[in-house]
């Protein structure tokens, strides 16, 4: 992989609110054209980080670069932003709202209206164009705001908890929209506390817990922090073969679980066969992002996000 261009970068961002530290030294690098997820439980500081990156608020210390500019509002025309708390004028017509959001970022209003109609039509929502926002459902209004985020064809899209409040169908549509934007060369950053979305979409993740950077890098890199997990079920309850299991091996529901030893599966297999363990099932699982998240951010952070490990669940 050649040297990539950086779309957004944060270095040691710190933010204090009324003497309380909300973000404590977060760093983040987002290569151009990538999809990057910012993971963390509620209150971890994800939104504050995004707001600092976008220039809505200034950091107490640290630096940021957005599309090469240290004053993010200077490149506002090339950035799209969907805030966590969705905000639209209730009396505005949908197409007008989309065009207005484009106009804020430098798109001529007439062109914005034309594109708004086209975007709605592409999604089969042309009948929404003349409807005031207040007459739309929450999900529809969210779609309108999302279209307003991309109407000016930005180079970078920042989505704060974009899946929150959407039903399964709309979540799928949103995932597709993110993929389409990425395929068109647009850099996407989104925050979420649902790891599955990040796992399906992201090439890179940043894990934030209690205002601090816990991890930042490629999804594979996060996964590779954990050894693969071995799931073993034997007919024999005990025997000398057990000495071949690593000390961390735990029996959960009649099944042995442990990290694959450094030496690989072969010595283990030999010991099981020689010791007449009677292998019923043996599988080696590559750890998922949520396992990596638990390992990196800790059980408490995972619990806040609604993700717990099987061991913790069993306990």
């Amino acid at each position, binding site marked *: 992989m050649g040297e990539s261009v950086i779309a957004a970068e944060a270095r040691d961002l710190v933010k204090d609110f009324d003497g309380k530290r909300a973000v404590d030294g977060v760093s983040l690098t987002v290569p151009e054209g990538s999809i990057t997820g910012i993971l963390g439980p509620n209150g971890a500081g994800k939104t504050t980080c995004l707001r600092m990156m976008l220039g*809505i608020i200034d950091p107490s210390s640290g630096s940021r670069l957005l599309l090469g500019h240290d004053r993010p509002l200077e490149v506002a025309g090339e950035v799209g932003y969907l805030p966590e708390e969705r905000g639209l004028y209730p009396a505005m017509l949908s197409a007008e709202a989309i065009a207005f959001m484009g106009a804020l970022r430098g798109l001529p209003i007439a062109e914005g209206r034309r594109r708004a109609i086209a975007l709605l039509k592409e999604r089969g929502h042309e009948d929404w164009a003349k409807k005031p926002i207040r007459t739309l459902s929450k999900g529809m209004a969210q779609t309108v705001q999302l279209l307003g985020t991309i109407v000016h064809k930005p180079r970078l899209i920042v989505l704060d908890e974009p899946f929150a409040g959407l039903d399964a169908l709309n979540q799928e549509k949103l995932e597709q929209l993110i993929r389409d934007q990425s395929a068109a060369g647009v850099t996407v950053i989104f925050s979420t506390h649902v790891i599955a979305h990040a796992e399906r979409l992201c090439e890179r993740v940043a894990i934030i817990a209690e205002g601090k950077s816990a991890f930042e890098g490629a999804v594979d890199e996060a996964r590779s922090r954990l050894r693969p997990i071995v799931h073993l079920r034997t007919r024999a309850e005990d025997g000398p073969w057990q000495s071949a299991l690593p000390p961390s091996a735990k029996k959960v529901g009649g099944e042995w679980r442990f990290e694959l030893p450094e030496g690989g599966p072969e010595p283990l297999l030999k010991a099981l066969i020689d010791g007449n363990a009677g292998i019923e099932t043996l599988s080696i699982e590559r750890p998922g992002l949520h396992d990596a998240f638990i390992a990196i951010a800790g059980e408490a952070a995972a619990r806040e996000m609604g993700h717990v490990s099987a061991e913790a669940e069993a306990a």
Partner: protein
Amino acid sequence: MKLPETIRAAFVIARRDFTATVLSKTFLFFLLGPLFPIALGFIFGGIGAQVERNAAPATVVVVSSPADFAQLNAARNRLSPLATERPLVALHRVDPEPDADAQRQRLLTSADEPVLGVLEGGLFSPHFTGAVTADGRTVQQMKLFVDEARQHQAMPLTPGLPISVTLTRSSSGSVAFARNLTARAGQTILFVLTILLAGMLLSQLIEEKSNKVIEVLAAAVPVDAIFLGKLFAMLAMSLVGITVWTSAGAAAVAIYAKGGLGALPPPAVGWPAFLFFILLYFSMSYLLIGATFLGIGAQASTVREVQTLSMPVTMSQVILFGLASLGVGKPNSAEAIGAAIFPLSSPFAMVARAAEQEALWPHVLALAWQVLWVAIILKLASAIFRRSVLKSGPGWRWPWQRRKAA
């Protein structure tokens, strides 16, 4: 962000706010707003007119012999039933004195009886002296009395005006009085318009805050542009209102007032320039006070808080008006100059100056000064907004809070 970009962004916000306001149904009520006090004015004006009709009529003193007066008074009494709208001028006779000038002067300044004028010369060469208009109602009535008396006596009608009239010429004092009146009227108009319209800016950011649109705006444009846009929108909306009200007012003046604006006391810079200055100073007053209110109102997060702020804010406007009115009638006094220098009262003070002083250069200076202060106040308001509402940078603290924190 460069200034043109801020201006561009401000216009995007202004256009949204302007159309959202002007195209709403409630804007019609806004335009009709001034009709309510006008309607009240008509009601109370009607009562006032009724009171005036029922009040004792004005008196003209006739300096003549009893015989001439009897004929004149009889003529008046014959014409009286025809005057249904207002009672005719009352006549009161005095004997001629040797020094006619002194007697006339004494009668006109008499404190015993409100005397509108003095008629001398009998029916043959009548001469009226008084503070009236040459072709006004009083002179017309006196003409009728004399004509009627002559016809009744079978006397020949005199061609041309039967009465010669002497009017007092305008003095420097009357001009000063007229300009003073215009200055106060100008200030009052400015004050009323500002107090009516600028107060609305207090609640301008509540909509964005409650709809969470503020986050979308703040991520796309500088806070300065948001404030400027809101200010432009409300100024434009106010100017639409003022245009409608002024047009309606001008039409009313054209229909009901004889001589239109020409009949009003003229300001020192002349009517066209004065009206232009009123428009400019209204805009400046609106921008200055509006920017302050916008900044104050932006700190409020609920409508209730805005309502609570309304009272002190209105009172502060009254104080500004009071400050500016101290200098009316003495444009070069310390009070007038002080009011012109203090940014928030400057537009009020300068409107008064336009009515009283002919020089134009102080206005150029004052307008530049006011524009500078609009920029300063907006910058300050947006900085406070960023710190205290968006929580960007170290939060705003009062000096005693800073000491405590330290």
